[in-house]
């Protein structure tokens, strides 16, 4: 029998061991929100009731940790994140698999994420640098403390938003609910919890790193896409419109016999770019998960 909400949450976390960390965070967030609301209501309705007595009947209605963990497991196994594909035995030939990447929503999602990271990197990274410096600078005054707290809260908001983008485009399960602190804590304790929570700092580091990463991702993949399309369309541009590809120096046309090779190289480079985008998307998704999910 659980004596308080924290004990319930600890048991629920134990029951969910082995599940996706984002699912655990969501389940704990749902439970904490519900139980605290119910507890507040029960204690204000019947002030003679002790917390232990109230929590027992609330848990009876909410469900014991084991039951709730199994409900989450059951639903999660039926709902896979957006763009996540089921694993099935691959029977197609190597070439078919190589080119079919262009029809894979997951590859397009990853590619779009990597291009978009240029914008998100500038916005999130820019916010970390400008607002971070201002809030750090203001710490020399007493007013700086709440400003710094608000800055850390904004970073949590960014982390949640980035998590939603990562889940939608990269198909990696990320938290779907914001984190919150126990309402019974005082302002000082809430502040302490915010500053000492490693999650806040990991999210801050992630938002900062997204700036250079976004530039690299967008630069590399824009160039790869540009070269693929240039190579593919080179015969049309050089022979029909008389615009040189400049492979061999300024304003030098590619020899006609070499154009099919260049065009073919483009046809291979395009799917290769998407395979690479899928791989980088997967690696980045894992990185985002390790940084933006509370341990």
């Amino acid at each position: 029998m659980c004596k308080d909400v924290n004990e319930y949450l600890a048991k629920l976390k134990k029951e969910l061991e082995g599940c996706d960390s984002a699912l655990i965070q969501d389940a704990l967030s749902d439970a904490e929100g519900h139980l605290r609301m119910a507890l507040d209501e029960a204690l204000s309705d019947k002030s003679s009731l002790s917390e232990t007595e109230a929590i027992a009947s609330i848990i009876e209605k909410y469900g014991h940790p084991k039951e709730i963990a199994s409900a989450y497991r059951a639903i999660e196994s039926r709902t896979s994140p957006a763009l996540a594909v089921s694993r099935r035995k691959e029977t197609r030939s190597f070439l078919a698999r190589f080119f079919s990447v262009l029809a894979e929503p997951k590859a397009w999602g990853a590619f779009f994420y990597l291009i978009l990271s240029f914008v998100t990197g500038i916005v999130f990274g820019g916010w970390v640098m400008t607002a971070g410096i201002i809030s750090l600078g203001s710490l020399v005054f007493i007013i700086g403390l709440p400003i710094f707290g608000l800055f850390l809260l904004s970073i949590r908001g960014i982390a949640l938003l980035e998590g939603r983008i990562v889940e939608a485009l990269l198909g990696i399960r990320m938290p779907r609910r914001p984190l919150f602190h126990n309402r019974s804590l005082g302002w000082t304790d809430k502040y302490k919890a915010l500053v000492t929570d490693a999650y806040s700092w990991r999210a801050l580091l992630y938002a900062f790193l997204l700036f250079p990463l976004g530039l690299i991702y967008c630069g590399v993949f824009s160039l790869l896409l540009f070269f693929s399309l240039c190579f593919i369309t080179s015969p049309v541009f050089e022979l029909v419109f008389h615009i040189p590809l400049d492979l061999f120096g300024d304003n030098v046309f590619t020899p006609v016999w070499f154009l099919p090779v260049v065009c073919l190289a483009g046809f291979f480079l395009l799917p290769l770019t998407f395979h690479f985008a899928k791989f980088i998307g997967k690696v980045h998704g894992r990185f985002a998960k390790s940084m933006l999910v509370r341990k």
Partner: protein
Amino acid sequence: MIIKSNVVSNDQEVRNLAYTADANKKFQKELNSGTAALVLLSILARADEPMYGYRIAKFMEVDDENVPMMKQGALYPVLRSMEGSGLLESHVDPSVSGPPRRYYKITKSGLETLKSWTKIWSQTKAFVDGILKGKADV
């Protein structure tokens, strides 16, 4: 000897009762997993404004006090999954009195789904009722 046989029959009775309780629980759970989404769609379709998980749970408690359909905690993953399927949409609003709340609202596709599921439910209910009341010939 008579005492021993009484003990054995009591043990058997306890085992039967435990089996019946387990079977009832399992049956209720299976029914719930199929009907929870329909019930939630119906509640949210009737609601004048978006509702958050705790309110929905309290509403279900008032609506059916005698037979708790499912544990309140099991509603949350169902709500999430319905949102994932596009039947519901949600937004998070900060709350003055506690943690931020996720408000759910039925979508257009949710309303259409509710209409067709209600029809399926009525047919299933009529069929099962017919069998239970012995109207159909066996």
